[in-house]
């Protein structure tokens, strides 16, 4: 079923499209340490793809490769049918790949609304000179950006804190603001780095709901990292499992759950 290049249909009846992003034989080293060893997998349009694994498995490194923060020594990254040359993170972002960070990287000095508006920077065609020359056009663009920002803010239910400086918000809300900033860019691929890390049960449930809603409402392709197995299995359509920089499993949650290597990695196994 998964080999079909035309996509597949999920268990809950959603249609998944063709390949958006393909990682081919990615190897990433830091000095002598191999963080990622010869990993290949793909991400398809409209799906929620998870990368899981125990701590130190290389999940975050993989996400950083996709978003351009790390450049792999070997392997190819294909995005929307074209091989991607080595790029700076901001260039990757301009291609339509938005992300959040495990440790939250928000603009602490700005309000929630301003933070979300920065997510629209990639969408703005006007610069300072054209802004001065064609005031009307620039204003129209600003209004459109504002509307999109408000739409996302409503969607993620953070209207009440729109004007609050981010530095005053609790952790869970910060995570949501970060999601809003990534989402407002209308990304072709949304990367979430441990969206549930450090949250309590209630916040985790909220976040899961938002991720599903985003995927459902906007059809956003999402790739996320988690080490909490339970959450991921409920959320994702397909799962890549990593351990010690290697891929040890890839498939639907059910397939992965039955995979002996995966069970060993998570429960530990006596090596002889």
């Amino acid at each position, binding site marked *: 079923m998964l080999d079909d290049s035309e996509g597949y249909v999920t268990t809950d009846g959603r249609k998944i499209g063709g390949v958006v992003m393909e990682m081919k034989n990615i190897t990433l080293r830091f000095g002598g340490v191999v963080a990622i060893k010869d990993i290949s997998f793909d991400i398809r349009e409209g799906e929620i793809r998870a990368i899981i694994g125990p701590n130190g498995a290389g999940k975050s490194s993989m996400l950083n490769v996709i978003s351009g923060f790390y450049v792999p020594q070997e392997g190819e990254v294909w995005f929307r049918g074209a091989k991607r040359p080595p790029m700076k993170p901001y260039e990757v*972002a301009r291609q339509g790949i938005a992300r959040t*960070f495990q440790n939250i990287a928000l603009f602490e000095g700005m309000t929630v609304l301003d933070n979300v508006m920065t*997510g629209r920077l990639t969408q703005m065609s006007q610069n300072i000179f054209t802004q001065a020359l064609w005031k009307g056009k620039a204003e129209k663009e600003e209004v459109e950006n504002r509307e999109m920002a408000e739409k996302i803010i409503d969607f993620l239910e953070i209207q009440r804190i729109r004007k609050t400086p981010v530095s005053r918000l609790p952790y869970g809300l910060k995570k949501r603001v970060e999601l809003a900033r990534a989402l407002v*860019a209308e990304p072709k691929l949304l990367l979430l780095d441990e969206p549930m890390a450090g949250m309590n049960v209630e916040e985790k449930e909220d976040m899961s709901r938002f991720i599903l809603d985003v995927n459902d409402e906007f059809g956003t392709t999402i790739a996320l990292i988690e080490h909490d197995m339970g959450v991921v299995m409920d959320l994702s359509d397909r799962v890549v499992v990593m351990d010690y920089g290697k891929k040890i499993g890839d498939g639907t949650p059910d397939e992965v759950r039955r995979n002996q290597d995966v069970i060993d990695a998570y429960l530990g196994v006596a090596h002889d």
Partner: protein
Amino acid sequence: MPEQLIFAMEVTLNGLMAGVLYALVALGFVLIFKASGIFNFAQGVMALFAAMTLVGIMDGQVPFSHLINAIFGTDLHHFGWHIPALLAIVLTTGVMVGLAWCVQQFVMRHLVNQPPIILFMATIGLAYFLEGLSDLMWGSEIKNLDVGLPQGINLWIDEVTFNIFGYGFFIDNLDIVATIIAALLVVSLMAFSQYTKEGRAMRAVADDHQAALSVGISLNFIWVLVWSLAGFVALVAGIMWGTKSGVQFSLSLIALKALPVLMLGGFTSIPGAIVGGLIIGVGEQLFEFAIGAPYFGGATQNWFAYVLALIFLVFRPQGLFGEKIIERV
């Protein structure tokens, strides 16, 4: 009204005007420090370089003429034309943008993620390099700078104050113009950072590099932009100081006066730079007038600002407007 009080008022006004010039230099520091965490020691020399370039362009001086003549045995000094002030200012702005690009491309780009002290050392190097470059390009003699700004006593104020107090205040027209221009500059910088795409990106970079990258902002571009803005502010400061006291190498020393200004105002606040500049300007004039001259034998302006800054460092290290430093344990 007692005579002493009237004199004090005049001194205060003149102090405010002097403070504006300190604030202008401090402003350049704040711009770069906010966006990149670099304390740019070269800001004062940039003002010098800008002023010298402006004079050179206006007078049609041949850049590097001494060097060229020494190598080729020629006798070039002037192109023999004069360029109107406004055009020369535009051209000099272009030169400052070019300088910003060079600084980013050849120096700062290679020092990303280095500790602040390394970056600071790099700007010290830059300061001396620029000073040498200014000398080599335009020569070291003191030059007159006249871009057509009004100078001399403001007769209107003289007359009005004379009618009220029976004593005419001496306020220089140049100081008034400097104040207006500085105010315009600050307002437009604020508007720029609040309402334009580039301004928003600049604030984003100042706040968090990683996050800025993730929303598609090129750090390199923003840093060139910031150095260009600082270069432009340096040009404005250079014009004011140059018009007032001639374009000379001691101009680069005014950068040191900006240090206490920054300690008062905070390194990250544009309003802080302005208020800090005004406080230092007024403070040193008033202190000299009321205490320095009668009791210390004068010339207290040389050290007053630093002592004030020292006191501030002890009681409010983040400055008046700076972000409070809270370290989580």
